[in-house]
């Protein structure tokens, strides 16, 4: 069932089941499709009850929408996962070292491995972070690295989400739903747990508290509020960790610390897991009009009085122009060959690259350097002539705003449809926690699946769904 030359994670070309899916397939063949269809609907009801919806930007009429869930799990063997996690850990360590370096001595520029202009002309470089030492030396407490697979052992990093990766609540709810509906599957298969994530996050954040924090560190989650598309996740994580969910107006600077209003007065916060962007974090230091932030929090941070997770200014590490230098960055800071592949990337700011991209638009994916969520991108192979022509004009007008990549042959995993199993393209976002205690990667992550046949866009804002992701024990 490997379709059109794409690598299918369940089936080999000869119609033979791949090893990680053997037990699952034996179970599946014994099930009645009509029962499974009913279960699929039941799963959707569970999500609706739990209130997991998703705001789609730019669609006024349907503000909240359910992300479709598919009941066929994506299954990864332990050996595959071990190899993958070594690569992820290497990459995340390199990103932290890179951030420390660019906000201090900039050795990578002095060594000639990264052009000065990549920092000097980068809007994501935050001057207020120059010389700042984040508590424990950690910049990226939570990272979600987007990976795609093109063959049995071949994974590519698509994006390093180093500022505020979301989606972890889907990973947890997907597992919860599968456990509720198909408990027998988890008896037959030994699946590594993901439910420890909130406790791990709590521990990881607490371990990153400022030096000199007395007793158990006070952790809180900062949300922009109920109108944010990921509000559900902010509330969910605060609840699961057993910490306060706060908004900017709940906090203020008191006695040189950031403190939250409680019934017994102000209580200082040691670690703030913020889901508010840098620009809006502090009206005194950044955007004065922001109602979402806390005036003076950057001053407290710069004087060492609070941990902000992730650190301000980490956005530069997931900038798409910096991305193209990741192989150099990994080698420079770890002294090792990168274990994970980078997708070959053309920087359109370079005239030769731009010329190539303009000549080959129909075969390439073009992305905005600072964009995310699949907005404002061109997928050459599926675009119309008109769309390509319009994009060509945008590219010519502001080449520095774009990068281009070849379209990758994303692996497929079957989804459950009325017609039975049908292969669909997937990606994977594993969640990584960093603290002075080390790097911890939750086995699995969020698998996003393009529900439309042949589609390569998995973003939930563009009609993608999700799957439970299993990493098997040996």
């Amino acid at each position, binding site marked *: 069932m490997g379709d059109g030359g794409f690598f299918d994670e369940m089936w080999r070309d000869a119609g033979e089941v791949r090893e990680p899916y053997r037990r699952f397939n034996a179970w599946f063949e014994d099930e009645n499709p009509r029962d499974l269809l009913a279960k699929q609907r039941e799963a959707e009801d569970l999500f609706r009850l739990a209130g997991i919806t998703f705001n789609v930007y730019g669609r006024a009429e349907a503000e909240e929408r359910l992300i479709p869930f598919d009941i066929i799990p994506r299954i990864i063997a332990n050996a595959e996962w071990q190899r993958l996690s070594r690569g992820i850990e290497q990459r995340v360590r390199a990103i932290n070292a890179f951030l420390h370096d660019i906000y*201090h001595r900039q050795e990578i520029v002095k060594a000639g491995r990264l052009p000065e202009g990549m920092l*000097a002309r980068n809007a994501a470089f935050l001057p207020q972070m120059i010389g700042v030492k984040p508590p424990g030396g950690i910049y990226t407490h939570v990272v979600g690295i987007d990976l795609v697979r093109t063959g049995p052992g071949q994974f590519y990093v698509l994006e390093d989400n180093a500022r505020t990766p979301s989606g972890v609540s889907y990973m947890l709810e997907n597992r919860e739903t599968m456990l509720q509906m198909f408990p027998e599957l988890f008896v037959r298969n030994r699946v590594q747990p993901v439910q420890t994530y909130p406790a791990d996050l709590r521990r990881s954040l607490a371990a990153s508290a400022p030096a000199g924090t007395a007793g158990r560190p006070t952790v809180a989650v900062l949300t922009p509020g109920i109108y944010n598309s990921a509000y559900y996740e902010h509330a969910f994580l605060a609840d699961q960790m057993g910490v306060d969910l706060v908004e900017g107006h709940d906090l203020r600077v008191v*006695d*040189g610390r950031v403190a939250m209003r409680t019934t017994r007065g102000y209580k200082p916060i040691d670690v703030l897991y913020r889901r508010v962007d840098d620009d809006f974090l502090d009206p*005194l230091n950044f955007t004065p009009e922001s109602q979402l932030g806390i005036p*003076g929090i950057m001053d407290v941070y710069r004087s060492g009085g609070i941990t902000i997770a992730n650190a301000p200014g980490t956005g530069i590490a997931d900038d798409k122009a910096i991305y193209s230098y990741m192989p150099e960055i990994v080698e420079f800071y770890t002294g090792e060959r990168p274990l994970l592949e980078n997708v070959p990337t053309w920087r359109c700011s370079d005239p030769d690259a731009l010329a190539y991209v303009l000549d080959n638009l129909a075969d390439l994916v073009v992305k905005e350097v600072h964009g995310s969520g699949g907005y404002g991108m061109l997928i050459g192979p599926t675009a119309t002539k008109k769309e390509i022509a319009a994009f060509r004009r945008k590219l010519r007008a502001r080449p520095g705003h774009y990068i281009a990549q070849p379209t990758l042959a994303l692996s497929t995993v079957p989804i459950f449809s009325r017609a039975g199993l049908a292969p669909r393209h997937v990606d994977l976002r594993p969640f990584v926690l960093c603290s002075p205690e080390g790097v911890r990667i939750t086995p699995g992550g969020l698998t996003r699946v393009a529900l439309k046949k042949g589609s390569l866009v998995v973003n939930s804002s563009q009609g993608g769904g999700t799957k439970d992701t299993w990493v098997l024990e040996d």
Partner: protein
Amino acid sequence: MRLTIRHTTRYSFDAPVSHGLQQLRKTPKTGQQQRVVRWRTEVEGGHKELSFTDHHNNLVELVSFDRDTQSLAVISEGEVEIRDTSGVLGPHVGPAPLWLYRRGTALTKAGSGVRGLARTVEGETELDRLHSLMQVIHAAVAFEIGEPQTDWGAEEALAAGKGVCQDHTHIFITAAREMGWPARYVSGYLMLDDRVEQEAMHAWAEAHVAGLGWVGFDVANGIAPDNRYVRVATGLDYAEAAPVTGLRTGGAGEALSVRIGVAQQ
């Protein structure tokens, strides 16, 4: 030369301030050409929350208003010893990388006016051209005593043909960056020969010249800073080097009074 300085900024409000913060950049820097003998900043009607050193190596103190206060006073007082180096400060030390000082800001965005001005600059050496730039601006923008328009950028001031030291400095650093030099804003004190009492702090520019390092230009007066100049804070523009940056809720009807005394000891 040894100068004693006393600087009082007093805010009063018709309505009480329920909450507010002020970032102070009021402590003179210690460097090659100046040494801070003693300095203290005190606050009335508020209290110090914390302090840190920012990326321009300025000491920043964060002050919060006392609850429901109707006045806040910041009193800085001290003594600084200065050496005359003809405006030459030497190599860049950071912590910000030198390239940061090539970046424009909202207040120092070059338009056709500044670019046109830059084209009239002449001179053999880098230093000659920078002096020429200073004289060109000095001639084009009349010095006017009075309140600065804090939201005026370099282009607006140049178009108006008049301004205060802040405007001269913005035009200079905008043009200097446009012409390829890293440049920065300096906020500080200037001892005047004919009086002690002053209404405002002074501002001048610094450009980074190959071989010399940072060199000062007092554009408003058309001269190089000497041992009457006390460097307090630096930044890409006024907004980053301002002595006070604040934010508050409540406190309608603000009135401000500033008293500065700079005297030779």
